[in-house]
């Protein structure tokens, strides 16, 4: 048996701890050679994503060091670092890896302390044993099974049918904000066989794959497949990922069978009834990871988890929830990073579901639903999914129709609300009626449709954690303004991503010059239903 030599990444701030490391060197202070120092100007620079990605890549431990509280060269960077590390710890707790991360304060004068901290951390990690990711057999990146020739891509996705009518350009919500992107242009680059231009074209990465252009394209060009595959041809990096690529890294981690998630079900509260086996399974997706990842934008979509279970319980359903549920892999699919990881995620999830005996799988997140319905069969075979897939709104609609949810009497004054059709639910899956059935049956509310709704809905502006930018924000503001124009007080979402992106924009601190935000409140459909049923205990969120 070979001895385990941990690999440690130490992120050191320039002014205190990196100087401390130098001092340690000058002072010839000995510490284990397992540490690789990565200098940043301030510990505040360290993001959740950096740490998760380091662990995904097989680092056995990550040590973040900064100036002592009150000493930060940049006044309060280390306070930020403290929050980020706390959030990261939350994520790592779910993964059972919280001990592999540590935050320490080391001043420029503390050469001795630097050596000690390093030695202690190395030993601590040595005791923990190797990061299960070290032996990872799968990885995300450019998948081997996608031929790299644009010509093949053109053939596979039918883009040669493009007649250059320009309807896609005139339809695309991004083109309307930002001329840098044109669906027709990226198709032309592929048709003319110009891979370098396609790769360099920001458009390929700006596309939010909302599918509105495909929906309207008279030539039947499958832009969604084209963009998905073109991204896989063109890249394997995650440079353009939002939030430091943390979700993509998490997907990479979860693709490895050896990784378990001991904290996966920590969200289950007392009084909620869940099971390990049963007829109906609730696939929670990445919701348990949302809160810590989005700590910095003050967005809290995870309430949907509890609300969903409460409503199910209220209807007499005890859902299966899986402790070893994996990321669905959606974000890898749409960022050109399927690698071998995606197929593995699919396999693990489907096997785990089959082990529960579930015949119906319910999703809060339309991305998960779409991925199971359309992308798993691609990698697992057409018959791999032999259980029913449904969106939570479909289940709710069914329960309401069957009279299994008793809704209270309505009041005279109805609160006007409107619904955001998530692109993955509406155009990708063709589900537009279910959320409306739910909302129509809610007493005290009145549904007012936005101009763009159903299959013509505008997207929330970001997808696959890939293209957060100015146009995303503008799309979000415009979409919320449309809701306001429709006379709605509430904008109901049926997707945790839509919920997060809208709230993110609403929560931006901005400045005095920032135009006023649309006056709508974003509410998750499960939470709204749960509240209406009186199941939320009067608490916030």
């Amino acid at each position, binding site marked *: 048996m070979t001895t385990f030599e941990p690999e440690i990444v130490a992120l050191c701030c320039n002014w205190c701890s990196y100087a401390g490391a130098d001092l340690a060197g000058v002072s010839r202070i000995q510490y284990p050679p397992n540490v690789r120092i990565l200098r940043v100007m301030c510990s505040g620079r360290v993001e959740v994503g950096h740490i998760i990605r380091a662990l995904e890549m097989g680092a056995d431990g990550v040590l973040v060091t900064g100036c002592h509280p009150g000493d930060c060269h940049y006044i309060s960077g280390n306070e930020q670092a403290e929050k980020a590390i706390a959030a990261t710890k939350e994520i790592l707790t779910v993964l059972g890896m919280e001990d592999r991360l540590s935050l320490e304060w080391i001043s420029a004068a503390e050469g001795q302390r630097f050596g000690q901290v390093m030695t202690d951390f190395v030993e601590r990690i040595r005791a923990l044993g190797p990061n299960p990711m070290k032996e990872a057999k799968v990885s995300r990146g450019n998948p081997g099974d996608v031929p790299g020739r644009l010509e093949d891509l053109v053939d596979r996705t039918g883009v040669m*049918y493009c*007649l*250059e*009518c*320009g*309807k*896609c*350009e*005139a*339809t*695309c919500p991004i*083109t*309307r904000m930002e*001329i840098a992107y*044109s669906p027709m242009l990226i198709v032309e680059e592929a048709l003319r066989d110009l891979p370098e231009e396609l790769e360099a074209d920001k458009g390929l990465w700006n596309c939010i794959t909302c599918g509105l252009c495909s*929906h*309207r*394209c*008279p*030539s*039947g060009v499958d832009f969604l497949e084209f963009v998905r595959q073109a991204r896989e041809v063109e890249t394997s990096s995650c440079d353009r990922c939002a939030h430091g690529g943390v979700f993509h890294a998490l997907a990479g981690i979860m693709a490895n069978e050896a990784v378990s998630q001991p904290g996966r079900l920590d969200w289950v509260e007392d009084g909620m009834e869940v099971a390990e086996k049963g007829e109906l399974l609730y696939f929670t997706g990445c919701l348990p990871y949302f809160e810590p990842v989005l700590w910095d934008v003050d967005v809290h979509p995870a309430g949907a988890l509890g609300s969903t279970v409460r409503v199910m319980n209220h209807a007499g359903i005890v859902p299966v929830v899986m402790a070893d549920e994996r990321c669905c892999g959606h974000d890898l699919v749409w960022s050109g990073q399927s690698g071998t990881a995606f197929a593995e995620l699919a396999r693990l999830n489907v096997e785990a579901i089959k082990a529960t005996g579930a015949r119906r799988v319910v999703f809060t997140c339309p991305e998960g639903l779409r991925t199971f319905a359309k992308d798993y069969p691609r990698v697992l075979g057409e018959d791999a999914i032999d259980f029913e897939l449904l969106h939570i709104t479909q289940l709710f609609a069914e329960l309401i129709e069957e009279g299994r949810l008793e809704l209270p009497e309505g009041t005279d004054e109805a609160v006007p609300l409107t619904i955001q059709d998530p692109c993955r639910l509406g155009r990708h899956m063709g589900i537009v009626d279910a959320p409306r059935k739910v909302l129509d049956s809610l007493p005290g509310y009145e549904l007012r449709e936005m*101009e763009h709704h*159903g*299959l*013509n809905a505008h997207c929330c502006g970001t997808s696959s954690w890939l293209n957060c930018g100015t146009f995303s924000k503008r799309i979000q503001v415009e979409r919320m303004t449309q809701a306001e124009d429709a006379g709605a007080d509430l904008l109901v979402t049926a997707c945790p991503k839509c919920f997060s992106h809208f709230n993110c924009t609403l929560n931006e601190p901005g400045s005095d010059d920032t135009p006023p935000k649309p006056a709508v409140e974003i509410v998750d459909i499960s939470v709204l239903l749960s509240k209406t049923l009186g199941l939320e205990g009067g608490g916030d969120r």
Partner: protein
Amino acid sequence: MTKDESVLIIGGGIAGFQAALDLAAAGVQVHMVEKSPSIGGRMAQLDKTFPTNDCSICILAPKMIETYGHKNINVRTYAEVQKVSGSIGDFQVEILQKARFVYEDKCTGCGACMEKCPKKVSSEYEMGLADRRAIYFPFAQAVPRVATIDKDACIHFKTGKCLLCVKECQAGAIDHKMEDEVITVNVGAIIVATGFDVYLPYEMEEYGYGRYENVVTAMEFERIINAAGPTHGHMQRLSEDKGRPKRLAFIQCVGARDVRHDRPYCSAVCCMHSTKEAMLAREHHSDTDSWIFYTDMRAFGKGFWEYIERGERDYGINYIRGKPGEIIEDPETKDLILYYTDRETREVRALEVEMVILATALIPRADAPEVAQILGIEMDEYNFFKAPNVMMSTDTTREGVYMAGYCQKPMDIPDAVAQGSATAARAMEAMAQNPKGGTSQKEVTA
């Protein structure tokens, strides 16, 4: 020349007229069967025709009257073919003469009955933009000018009461007890010329047809600018304001060249009719501006490209290559905002107009499958009647049955007229080669 040559023509539109008049002039007996109460077909609904801007009804009406009045042509309106047996040279055809509840020989066409009729229904001829009564002429220039009672709408057939029309009719022409009749004719050849329907793009939500009042189809616009139309030729909007639209946008290929709606084909006439309509709008009011949004400007016929250039030069039509992504209505003004890409700057632009005219696909008649079944002929995947030999496009898959006009494939009026004549030639050839009752290729001398 054999004196007993006769031909059945199904469809009383321009293609059918041409076939009928050629055959009749050549001494052939023609039975023309038209489903609706009047002959005339689609051309009777058009305002003008491209590329000459000839008035459509003006050039059509003489043909209608000549056809109806010709001694060798027996026109049956409000009738349908319901069974065909036999073979080339000797077909037996059963025609269902639907009861029109008005005697053709007694009705003077005075129209008094329809002034009194209390029941209003949407007029097919006016593309639903106006009402007609339960007893009606489909349009003012109808041939024959004989009233017809729409049984489905007539109050008497529902309640047994009313009969106001009977009271009003001085000619005593109305009889609610009339019954359908079946007539059998023998013919040597059959020509089918049943024309087309207009695709109504309700499902293409992005263009708001059916949702926005001022988004209309080209055929509706033809009626709106027609002097005999529902607005008496005043170009006006369908929204409550009834305002005169000064800015018009035309969108080409709506539901055509569109695989998403299973219609990849090009309707062949729309680039031209949109240009025509934009010209006519300018002629109605010289301060009208038009934009035509297209994919390929298909001005391929004789004098067509010159027509487009005239549209641009003399009528100030703005031709914009690019399909709008969507239309949004301003709920206050009922104006319409189109989003399209400007080809020069490659920016998405918004254009505000007061009316949008959709050049929607022209499609086979809804009852084409039934007609095909009755005639024993095949259709293509879109329900156009099929020519087994592409180089003989007037021939169907059944010997002795020929076809002309839009029921076969997209084409314009002159092509339909040429096909009308061509089917007449094929029918004459067929009858010469297969004299009635003959099974062999017997010679017929002139």
